[in-house]
């Protein structure tokens, strides 16, 4: 079968705190910077791998209650931390449900907008760090 049904229900931890029940969106972009290595005598450009600079964007509901979103993030601005996620909360860390981690990822800002009649969302982006995958 060419496709399989997949219900996205990832598990997310920020600084070891589980925020699965506050997270409604996750975008991970693995980036390894391209360094041009084209030399004379070639007819096309070539590149080699530079530094890794991956990002993880999380869309979290703006809860200001104790032990919720804001309490987790407020002291992380301007610092580095560890964020990890897996496609499903059930049996993470396996080949079919790998746990992926950015260790030493930097949080620059906590932007949020509050509007009448809507649930506030805090979209944060963790940048950089060392990417690793656990899939035993």
């Amino acid at each position, binding site marked *: 079968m060419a496709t399989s049904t997949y219900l996205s229900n990832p598990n997310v931890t920020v*600084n070891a*705190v589980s925020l699965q029940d506050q997270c409604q969106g996750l975008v991970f972009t693995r980036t390894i910077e391209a360094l041009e290595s084209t030399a004379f005598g070639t007819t096309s450009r070539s590149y080699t791998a530079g530094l890794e600079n991956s990002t993880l964007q999380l869309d979290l509901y703006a809860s200001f209650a104790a*032990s919720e979103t804001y309490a987790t993030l407020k*002291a992380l601005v301007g610092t580095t931390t560890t964020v990890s996620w897996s496609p499903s909360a059930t049996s993470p860390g396996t080949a079919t449900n790998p746990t992926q981690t950015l*260790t030493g990822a930097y949080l620059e800002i906590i932007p949020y907008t509050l509007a009448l009649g809507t649930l506030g969302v805090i979209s944060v982006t963790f940048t950089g760090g060392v990417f690793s995958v656990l899939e035993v």
Partner: protein
Amino acid sequence: MPYKIISPRLGEPGTEYDAEGATANGINVAALVAGGFLEQSTNETPKPAKTNSKNTPKD
């Protein structure tokens, strides 16, 4: 310095938190304390009651 878990989002409340291991894994322990997820545990053991040997009955 020992830490005790407060929030179930982090683990079992009341149990000790391995701050050294967490720090080695890139966890910001100070942010966990500031967010109210952890607290420093005093871990003091009660002193034993003093006994006065002068008042003990002799055999």
